[in-house]
């Protein structure tokens, strides 16, 4: 009886097929129609580009980030983000990007070290510089980074998004964190999908008491408030687990709840399709159950499933962030956006170093993009409507 929150299709243009002429529509394949309709949802198209960008960053994290995420620098703690400027120390336009130097000052009252920009100093940013060694994709040893400062900076690090309490580079940490935060959504969604399709499919195709049992289980799981349940289950993970085991533990915990809504949808589709004429005619032609399911029923709702999969990723990203933020999810030294946000728990720290909230901005961006993409996909999944 729950009415799902439906971020409706507000970005649908009033006339979805305006430019494509009638003749082309009548002979186009469903896939073609979906693409035409998806393309109309401009924010969804932008979201795809944003997401591809973010996943590329995650994939090439070692190359893109100038430092190792765990390299600390005791003399550069809480450095504010550095502005990139094209003007050198004398104020001349140089035509290449660079950063100004830093002056350390100690506040005489609080004894806190603060950093001021030294506009008389200017160090150019070098591209494809050699720096700390890392393993690209976990295999190739290399030490070439996309950008960094050269020798002339006298060891001053380049923190264009600032540094944290140990003088670690925020940008490097956010990019490395995205590997966990962005992948956990995908992995967990595929786990939920597997569970949802198998159990929802059995439930919908066979019906009867199997259906009843599975539906009661789904109702039971959904009747428990999800955040407390997630918290309780992740608190029960043994503390001595390795980073990887913990990652998979959290993934499984998130899917335990995630599969229920997918399972419901799959079941609903199966129930609706079971009585369709094309299923009946397949059966009359002697097709086996398996063939009917795989060849006839599943293809007719894959697009819907893909849309709802996309729409369930944001929830998982948010859940992982929240759990890690509370200290129940992933833990240091693992890096995820939620783990990074733990540093921002103290409001006094945030007030002095607001850039510690930047990982949260990454979360918001990823979640927004997935929501818009899902929205566009859902509209496109029904190319014949309207």
């Amino acid at each position: 009886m729950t009415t799902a929150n439906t971020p409706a299709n507000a970005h649908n243009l009033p006339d979805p097929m305006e430019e494509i002429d009638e003749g082309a529509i009548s002979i186009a394949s469903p896939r073609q129609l979906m693409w035409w309709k998806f393309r109309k949802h401009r924010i969804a198209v932008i979201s795809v580009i944003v997401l591809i960008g973010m996943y590329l960053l995650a994939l090439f994290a070692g190359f893109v980030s100038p430092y190792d995420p765990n390299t600390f620098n005791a003399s550069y703690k809480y450095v504010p983000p550095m502005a990139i400027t094209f003007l050198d120390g004398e104020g001349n336009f140089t035509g290449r990007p660079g950063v100004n130097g830093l002056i350390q000052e100690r506040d005489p009252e609080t004894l806190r070290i603060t950093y001021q920009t030294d506009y008389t100093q200017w160090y150019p940013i070098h591209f494809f510089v050699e720096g700390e060694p890392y393993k690209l994709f976990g295999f190739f040893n290399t030490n070439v980074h996309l950008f960094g400062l050269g020798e002339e900076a006298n060891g001053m690090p380049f923190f264009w998004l600032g540094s944290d309490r140990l003088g670690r580079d925020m940008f490097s940490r956010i990019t490395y964190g995205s590997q966990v935060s962005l992948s956990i959504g995908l992995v967990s969604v595929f786990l939920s999908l597997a569970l949802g399709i198998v159990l929802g499919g059995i439930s919908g195709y066979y019906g009867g008491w199997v259906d009843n049992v599975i539906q009661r289980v789904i109702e039971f799981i959904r009747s428990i408030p999800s955040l407390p349940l997630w918290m309780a289950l992740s608190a029960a993970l043994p503390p001595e687990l390795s980073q990887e085991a913990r990652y998979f533990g959290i993934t499984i915990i998130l899917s335990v709840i995630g599969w229920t809504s997918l399972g419901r949808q799959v079941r609903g589709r199966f129930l609706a399709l079971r009585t369709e004429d094309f299923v009946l005619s397949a059966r009359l032609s002697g097709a086996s159950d398996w063939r009917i399911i795989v060849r006839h029923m599943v293809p007719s709702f894959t697009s819907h499933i893909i849309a709802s999969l996309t729409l369930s990723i944001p929830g998982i990203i948010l859940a992982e962030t929240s759990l890690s933020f509370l200290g129940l999810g992933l833990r240091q030294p693992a890096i995820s956006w939620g783990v990074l946000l733990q540093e921002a728990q103290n409001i006094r720290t945030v007030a002095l170093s607001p850039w510690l909230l930047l990982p949260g901005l990454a979360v918001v961006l990823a979640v927004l993009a997935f929501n818009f993409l899902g929205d566009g996909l859902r509209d496109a999944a029904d190319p014949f409507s309207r």
Partner: protein
Amino acid sequence: MFQFIVRRILIALVTIFAISIMSFVIIQLPPGDFLTSYVASLASQGDSVSEQVVQAMRENYGLDQPIYVQYLKWIGGVVQGDFGRSLEWGVPVADLIWDRLAMSLMVGLSSVLFVWSLAIPIGVYSATNQYSLIDYISTFLGFLGLAIPNFMLALVLMWIAFSAFGQDVGGLFSPEFQDAPWSFEKFINLLSHLWIPMIVVGTAGTAGLIRTMRANMLDEINQPYVETARAKGLSERRNIWKYPVRVALNPFISTVGYALPSLIGGEIIVAVVLNLPTIGPILLRGLLSQDMFLAGAIVLLLSVLTVLGTLLSDILLALLDPRIRME
């Protein structure tokens, strides 16, 4: 109708039974029983307990008995309002949670009011003025509200309040009212602190409900009965609020019961950030320190609240919408 209610109540009872088993499992999940951790915590403070005492306590708490007997003992206590003892705090769990649950209800209730008073008018306006500027803005803000993690919003609001007014806006009371008896001033003081958690807890819900309300209104607004009313010469404003809005409100009814428990669930993490005297922080501490009777009791209570809320919603909805009863 009677049959429908009886069936719903039976389902709810079965679910509550299943939930109690699950909460018990959660209590049992950490390795060792709670005496092992109790002895360990005593040992860390330099105290030690003799083997006999431990054995006696073990018998006393029934920890040497089979698991189902332990469950029966526990649930028997719960039914009488005894949730066991909190190890970390050294007091009965029941003493810890009721006050805090009341505070949670209070924050939750004000958020519900906030959500509805915002979501209904905006949803109606967005639907009647589709593709207008306000529709786009509310859609955008709605998506943003769904995308920002609650605790992040809490942090940002606190940060703004801290840097603009230089004051720490955490908690529900100023220090001088913390332990003061209830008075009118204390109530005013509470209101002045309540708005941040209210907004933070409410945002995601508001965003979702605006979308639902808008979609439902769009479905209703083109129905022939609306056209008929218009043709009869009813003013547009009266027409909208008298007919389609009332139909579109159904999903609100279907969430009225568990809106509160689900907001309390969502409030947990906000309460940790804002340092509110609600159940969120003690649930987190209970889980982190494996104070399992405390954590189990809270999970149990929240789940039971949700089930009861859902039951209430189902019955209300069936009363209002005959189509539901027929299923």
